[in-house]
């Protein structure tokens, strides 16, 4: 992946914001900015605030890299605004983000393309209030069985996510999910090896990077396991047979394609004991922190993080604004 971006290109990395993942975003942004600088690009970093539009108009960058996680960053909103201003940016267009960031919607789209997704139900808080939480939860357990994964429909970094092993644990898990959003996704828990498969596109078409197997010490890849160096073992490429390895790559590429994603994405998958590949979710602005899986996969592929990021910037610049 050659870094052909003109060295005079001015890149603005957006990081921070007001989402619950602000801290992660700042770390991702800093790392991507440093990687881009290492290729000779002129890079500025900026938080997202009320002065952003004025700043973009006054000092228009050649390309924006939105390293914003969570709402605004991944739901397409910030990219809509960049489109309004005709500023090129790295990453998927707003409409694709809207679909991909909403976990049940993304699951449905990917399932329609023939990918395995675990059976799930998506319900807002109001449903539990109006129909009686006990009755609804009993029906959920009856239908989906245990264990269950409960998560907010629009969130990242495993915030608000709980694995529920008994029916008694479900109310607390629901409250935990609703602390991060008004709608919760409950899905049948799939036991197996968790793998992250990044997809990057340097302008010559999307390709899957080596899958990263995730083995957290505590068994659950929660916030602490994600962002505490040493708390999780990552194996790259994941210890999969050639056939299954090819399948996780195919699923990640298929998800990237059918969701209309662009430049970069990361699919989170489970490989069960029978070697079947289950799609969990996809990230349109995956983490690039020191403990994130995308930089690991880039490195495992023999690529340079700066060169990959610069190639995505180049693709965005070539594409131009409102694309």
């Amino acid at each position, binding site marked *: 992946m050659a870094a052909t971006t003109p060295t005079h290109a001015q890149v603005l990395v957006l990081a*921070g914001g*007001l*989402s*619950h*993942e*602000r*801290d*992660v975003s*700042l770390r991702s942004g800093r790392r991507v900015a440093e990687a881009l600088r290492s290729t000779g690009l002129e890079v500025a970093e900026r938080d997202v*605030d009320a002065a952003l539009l004025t700043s973009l108009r006054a000092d228009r960058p050649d390309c924006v890299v939105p390293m914003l996680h969570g709402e605004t960053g991944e739901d397409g909103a910030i990219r809509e605004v960049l489109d309004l201003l005709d500023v090129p940016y790295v990453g998927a267009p707003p409409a694709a983000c809207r679909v991909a960031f909403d976990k049940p919607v993304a699951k449905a789209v990917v399932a329609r393309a023939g990918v395995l997704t675990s059976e799930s139900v998506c319900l807002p*808080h109001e449903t*539990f*209030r109006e129909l009686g*939480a*006990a009755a609804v939860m009993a029906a959920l357990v009856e239908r989906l069985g245990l264990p269950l994964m409960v998560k907010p429909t629009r969130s990242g970094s495993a*915030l*608000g996510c*709980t694995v529920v092993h008994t029916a*008694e*644990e479900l*109310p*607390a*898990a*629901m*409250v*935990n999910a*609703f*602390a*991060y959003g008004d709608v919760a996704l409950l899905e049948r828990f799939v036991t197996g090896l968790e793998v992250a498969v990044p997809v990057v596109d340097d302008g010559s078409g999307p*390709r*899957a*990077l*080596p899958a990263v197997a995730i083995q957290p010490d505590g068994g659950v890849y929660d*916030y*602490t396991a*994600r*962002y*505490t*160096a*040493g*708390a*999780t*073992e*990552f*194996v*790259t*490429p994941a*210890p999969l047979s050639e056939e299954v390895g090819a399948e996780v*790559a195919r699923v990640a590429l298929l998800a990237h394609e059918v969701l209309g994603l662009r430049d970069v994405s990361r699919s989170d998958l489970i490989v069960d004991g029978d070697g079947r590949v289950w799609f969990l979710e996809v990230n349109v602005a995956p983490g690039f922190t*020191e*403990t994130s899986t995308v930089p*690991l996969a880039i490195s*495992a*592929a*023999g*690529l340079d993080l700066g060169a990959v990021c610069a190639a995505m910037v180049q693709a965005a610049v070539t594409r131009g604004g409102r694309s």
Partner: protein
Amino acid sequence: MESQPARASTRLDSYVDRYAARTAGMTASEIRALFSVASRPEVVSLAGGMPNISGLPLDVVGGAISELVATQGPVAMQYGSGQGVPELREQICDVMRLEGIDAHPDDVVVTVGSQQAVDLVTRIFCDPGDVVICEAPSYVGALGVFKAYQCDVVHAEMDADGLVPEALQQAITATKAAGKTIKFLYTIPNFHNPAGVTLSPARRHEVLEICRREDILVLEDNPYGLLGFSREPMRALRADEAEGVIYLGSFSKTFAPGFRVGWALAPHAVREKLVLAQESATLCPPQFSQMAVSAYLAQHDWQGQIKQFREMYRERRDAMVEALDDLMPASCRWNVPDGGFYVWLTLPPGIDAKAMLPRAVTARVAYVPGTAFFADGFGSSSMRLSFCYPTPERIREGVRRLAGVLEAEMELRQTFGANASAPTLEVRSGYDAPSSDLT
């Protein structure tokens, strides 16, 4: 795909198997990540304990520092004594005299904020497994130190008059009966962080009497003692017990925290060890900061400045209490502190402050969940609200947002019932508070 690369396994930390046991708990946490959002101006942060020093006479401070550099620069920028600058130690004795302490400068050890004094005292007294008795709740920064030295913390209950003597006695008796060694009682007698309460004069005598009888050393941490709103400073425990009390003081709240100057006043033998511990930790406390603080004390009406601080903080306390009275549900309880920075608020039964924090941050208001102030997992139904930094208007707005968050949370809890109150986030006592640079 590229040609298949060699498989590699990594934990992204090559030292993961080499850390000391005391680093357990030093992990990334959702709670601390949420405090990152609280630093944004859109969020009304009632979480941090950053002193509001906007009223400091910067021209006076600047002039004093300029003169310091011009006249004593080579000394100020040189290494100094491990015990601290002698002139400053004399001035510290003048400060402590306001609380009835008659001390000699030789018994004062200057530290990097009183936080380092807590660390040094714990370092010289505590082996792993030793017990420190703390109020319930207690200062999160001290709990972090005790955890780092692998101490066991035993909490003793407080009420509106501070530490309950009977609870202290009970904690001592039970701990001794369990065959454990109690190294000291850690107490914040004035305008407690986080509880906001003050130990009554009668109880001061009782607490000292219990500790004398049981041969328990007292670590009296007093950063807020001069910041009372309605009366003269209370008499320090150390004023009535020289041998059994180590007193900790700080200029962080009465002047400015950036200088990082605090101190310990200790009995002679302890002081000698503290100096050696200080030298092994830092060689010496920062000479420049000490001399700058000394110049400020010498050249400025520092007592008048503290009076201004008191009035400013009282106005903010009033704003918070008035807003709580007006806006919070009757099922909440809180105290009205007579000084310091904090209100301790207890939520209606079944509401978990820690679990509610993400919702609060979404609503652009932040607080510190009560669990941060307990070593034993308690405190989930409480929170610390700081009134020291935001303006009165922002405080009211923050409470208004908090009331809305609480209303939604109560509705949620009502929907899912009592079973939903199980803690869902890991308790990390001593760590889950905003870092010191957050408001």
